[in-house]
């Protein structure tokens, strides 16, 4: 098998296509995860992927390894149960921003406090995609969504601050910066405690097109122009992506 496609052994190609819209960024995150597993040369029986509910939540079902698709918001505690039962498994949570930060936000707080060794990949499309485009915890200020027709008045969830408050691993990337995204996931998987990868990804259908983007390509170009890579920051600025330093590790 050619090296560039070896990551496919982690995917259930027979289950394709995914239910995602054309132009959706989720497929890139899925692929980056598989590539990161491949880069670390993981054994399929060493990894378990857990998702919650939402568009991103459907990701677990496309991995060719044991995977769990739990209730909305509950991927983290379920993953903690797996990890506690069998610490030899690499347990990866692959889910959406609404799922992990909204309905499941309390679990994230406590999982970081416990520093449970999990890698959490958050598909941050800044919207509740699956349910049609309501404001999510990461929706930016003044953004118009179905539930914020006048523009969002609530401050977006500062997930970086929360993860770092408990000295867990935090990295941020986008679906434009694919080699960087893969690198973030690889480093997260290497981290001994809880690691969180915040992936800025495009929901063209229920977010992007409503806020003036013509297509997914325009959103990707926006990521390209707006975000600078900084892989050695203590704390990332809003327009930065990168792997932040984690004290004591």
């Amino acid at each position, binding site marked *: 098998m050619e090296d560039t496609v070896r990551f496919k052994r982690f995917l259930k190609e027979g289950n394709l296509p995914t239910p995602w819209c054309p132009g959706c960024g989720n497929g890139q995150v899925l692929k980056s995860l598989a590539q990161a597993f491949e880069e670390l040369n993981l054994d399929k029986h060493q990894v378990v992927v857990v998702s919650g509910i939402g568009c991103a939540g459907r990701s677990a079902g496309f991995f*060719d390894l044991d*995977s769990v698709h739990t209730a909305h918001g509950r991927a983290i505690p379920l993953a903690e149960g*797996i990890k506690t039962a069998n610490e030899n498994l690499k347990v990866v949570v692959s889910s959406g921003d609404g799922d992990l930060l909204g309905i499941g936000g309390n679990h994230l707080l406590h999982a970081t406090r416990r520093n449970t060794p999990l890698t959490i990949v958050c598909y941050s499309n800044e919207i509740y995609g699956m349910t049609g485009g309501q404001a999510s915890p990461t929706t930016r200020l003044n953004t118009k969504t179905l539930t914020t027709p006048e523009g969002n008045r609530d401050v977006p969830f500062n997930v970086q601050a929360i993860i770092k408050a408990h000295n867990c691993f935090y990295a941020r990337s986008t679906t434009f910066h694919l080699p960087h995204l893969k690198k973030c996931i690889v480093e997260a998987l290497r981290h001994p405690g809880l690691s969180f990868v915040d992936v800025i990804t495009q929901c063209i259908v229920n977010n992007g097109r409503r806020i003036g983007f013509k297509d997914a390509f325009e959103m990707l170009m926006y990521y390209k122009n707006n975000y600078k890579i900084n892989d050695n920051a203590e704390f990332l600025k809003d327009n930065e992506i990168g792997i932040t330093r984690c004290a004591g590790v």
Partner: protein
Amino acid sequence: MLKQLLQGNQAIIQAAERAGLGLFAGYPITPASEILHELVGKKHIKVLQMEDEIASINACIGASLAGLKVMTATSGPGFSLMQESIGLAHMMEVPMVIIDVQRVGPSTGMPTFPAQGDIIQARHGSHGDYFPIIFYPNSVEELYRYTFSAFNAAEESLSPVILLSDGYISHLYETVELKDYPIAQRSMPPLGTSNRHFTGLTHQDSRPVTSSPEAHRELLAQLQKKCTETSRNYSFYEYIENTEADTLLIAFGALSRAVYQFKDKYALFRPIRLFPMVEELKDVASRYEHIIVLEMNAGQYCYQIERLLHREVGLVSLPGGKIDIKEISDRLQGLRQKLPKQVSVS
């Protein structure tokens, strides 16, 4: 044989430990908390104090899929929080034991007076259709014994089995003979051995199938068959015949202990497996002119019995945590005079 004076909750722990409990996840709530604290520090049992009951049951689901026998314990408010994920565990076919030590509700109610108000919640609390196996013992010795049954039935049915208790029997101290009962082995290969997909979506061969009514009906029928067939191996009830009596009293849990007082005047039937309902009750009930159900709620099980027997059933409803023999006796007298005579043809 080892005999010990144990509290009800401690008896559950003793049995769970012997049945092979590997992980317990829970959140404090009276009258169930002893199960959480007294498990801490036990060799071979991992204990997670989670941030709430939703996290607790999900940690149990994860650990069960990963290969351990798991249990959680709670009371009404926490049991309500678990409901969504109980449905998930049925859909994903995850064995586990859930202890619900009932207290007076709704809401915070009267913490922590005993009650029997979670009967319907235990049976139907999650959305959609599912067919849980539910036991409700009435003594410390029975809590011990039926905890083994709960673990075994969970493995056999690959489903969450509910063991109901209440504030009285969980806090009662009685002598228990710590017998060894048969123990089922883990019936499912653990996570990390295959490429299965466990999902709460309707599925076929571990793939989501979300727009086929036929697939959904087939899945439901399979789940129902599996739980119902398993339950037949656990047909637990107590029947105290009384050939002089024209009335059969039905009671369970704490209240059934008081109802024993009336066995000279009445026949008594005590279901220990509340759901699926024990079929034997149909035959027993056909021998009596009147049926009266006594329960510490507003009639939750009574309606189930009417449906099972297709006849009118009297109700002595005793919510609020009080069990008073004189009150029960007066209520029975009053009720019996009002009930129409009927013998069902079964």
